[in-house]
């Protein structure tokens, strides 16, 4: 069975803390995701997302603070702007833009974190593997007639 790989970038102040809360509350969710903690979701740029897809991620998740609650005033809005543009580019690249998800999850929303993770894992499972690591432009690229 297809086991998706989900790369999560979580902001330290809200979503990462929300994920911790899910843990201390002993809620359970899918094992398919692994978190990388950043100070703010606005630390992430499309290069990181592309790199994750290219290196085998089937889905990428970015978690930030709710609008108006950003620890750094407005970092989450910057993330929103980048994600909005990048999602349009994903479609041009032939990657389903649902494979990238941006959510606002606060430190108090352990439940929302768990639900989101389960839901996202399910969605990625339904979308199937992406296998971008196999996409290459090496010398062996075939020339068809």
């Amino acid at each position: 069975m297809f086991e998706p790989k989900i790369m999560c970038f979580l902001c330290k102040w809200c979503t990462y803390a929300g994920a911790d809360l899910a843990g201390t509350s002993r809620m359970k969710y899918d094992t398919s995701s692994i978190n990388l903690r950043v100070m703010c979701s606005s630390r992430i740029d499309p290069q990181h997302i592309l790199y994750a897809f290219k290196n085998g991620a089937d889905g990428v998740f970015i978690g930030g603070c709710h609008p108006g609650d950003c620890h750094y005033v407005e970092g989450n809005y910057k993330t929103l702007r980048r994600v909005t543009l990048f999602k349009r580019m994903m479609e041009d690249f032939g990657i389903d833009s649902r494979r990238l998800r941006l959510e606002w999850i606060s430190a108090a929303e352990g439940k929302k974190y768990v639900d989101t993770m389960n839901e996202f894992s399910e969605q990625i499972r339904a979308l199937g593997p992406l296998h971008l690591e196999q996409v290459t432009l090496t010398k062996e690229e075939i020339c068809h007639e």
Partner: protein
Amino acid sequence: MMGNGKKKKIGIFVCHCGVNIASVVDVERVAKELDGYTDVELSTDYVYMCSEPGQKMILEQIQERGLDGVIIAACSPTLHEKTFQNVAELAGLNPYMVEIANIREQNSWVHTDKEKATDKAVKIVKSMVEKLRGNEHLEPIKVGITRRAMVVGGGVAGLQAALDIADHGYEVVLVEKEPSIGGHMVQLSETFPTLDCSQCIMTPKMVEVSRHPNIKVLTYHEVESISGFVGNFKVRIKKKPKFVDEDLCKLCGDCADVCPQVVPDEFNMGLSFRKAIYLPFPQAIPGAYTLDIDSCLGLLPVRCGKCKDVCDARAIDYDMKEEIIEEEVGAVVLATGYDLYSMQALGEFGGERYEDVINGLEFERILSASGPTGGEVRRPSDGKIPKNIVFIQCCGSRDPELHNSYCSKICCMYTAKHAMLYKHRVHDGNATVFYIDVRAGGKAFDEFYQRTVDEDDVLYMRGKVSKVYKEGDILKVRGVDTLTGKLVEMEADMVVLAMSMVHADGSGELMKKLKVGTDKDGWLAEAHPKLRPVESLNAGFFLAGCAHGPKDIPDTVAQASAAAAKVGDLFARHELLHEPTIVPVIEELCSGCGICISMCPYGARSLDLTKHVVKVNEVLCEGCGACAAACPCGAAQQKNQTDEQIFSMVKAILKG
């Protein structure tokens, strides 16, 4: 290439956390799989890493093996990161070479499948190895503090903040743009809900401020610009010439007596007149006359010069010039207050057209014993006592479409007070209040409102007014009472508009100069709406009173004291320590495009105009990394979270 190409010696310590981790994650396998991973010198597990023996083991291993960095795979970094950093420091290792792999909250506690959880733990730890390989030794950025504060605004908020800071033992520079301190509160008549006389409680405070050895009062001064950062500001302040020497003026008033120029009196909201040389009000502090150059006939003695001729004290000096003074301070309290929204904006109420349609502050002056009518309620046009008075609330407030979307908060209460005081003064008069909602949510507020209705027979009409116009010398008010569903037309001798409060800083010029953040309405923005309500987003700036948003006097004073306490908190520190995980600029790569500058909410980044690169004020940088992501050429790299580190962590997570 990682870690500057130098091989590191990394120690990995996997914690069982009793059974908290070990029951789901095969910790031994984790330790074993990491053994031999790039740069890993040691990989081991232990039942409780945070216990005394656990910590001791880490300490000894660092020292014995000369580890360059350690990873503790255990609980969330929010719990014990500090603990393990201390251990590292004891062992002589830079605390920024400690990383925590969270395999409890974000792994063992949320999963049940042992196999998968163990695989996940391995990847988590590997990703932290990759991060650690790129980490640098960092030292907290240390900055000294100038233990001196500036308070901008001499209203009740500014005075309270200045007094509290001064009482903490620190010097305060109080800057007020008007000739006297006192602000709007000293203009008020009586204050809700206790009806104590505003001047009676305000003037002693003004005197206290003027006499306090730690407070330097600068009236008729305006802040020009500010540079520096928290703990170390340099402020340029413009001193406007008063043309009267404060120390020499004996308050005899001879100058005003001879002055031929008559202008509307600001203190009385234009309801009376003053001379071009004037004392704003009898209890003004500093107690000295001011020559208002805009109204004066001219300083050349050939043109007038009467005031100078009669001044026995020789206090008047026509040669005074505008000056710029500089002050060094460590913190700034912003208490710039409010103004009332222009009545002209609501043309249908006739505010600027009819003399007897006035705003709330004008009515305060009419009610005040020191006001133009000596406290008797008389209308401005002809001095008659108004027998019918109409109050209209929410004039420009709660109107997102045309005016201000916010509630001005104090109008419900002061209108109730106005109606009540009117009834106390004019027993046979009728007071009617048009309102949408009565918001009386403060201590003893609702009781006060009820008293207005119950005991003083004020008629509250639930609805708005659409038009106020004059027929003869009678004002006609057209409105609606939505409770009966009837149109209302009534005659009034006088109409008082509860104009919306707006921030005093006009177009926001001052806040732009100070580079302090404001909200969409121009009010000062707080650092966090719940947890940091008296701090600005910009370190070293604190908020007090209505500059932050509409507030009543008790709230204003409370916030001023809180701001003062925060200043004391800052000044009590030995030095300021700042997280070093900032985002510097690699000058060799930076082309000064300026994109990162607009990303920084703290103003930490600016263009170096000679080198054409961006320079970073390390003390202001909070290390969010938004600029690093926005930097189009990779010249902005966050310390210990570079792009290269993120890439290799991602790779480790996805490929194991």
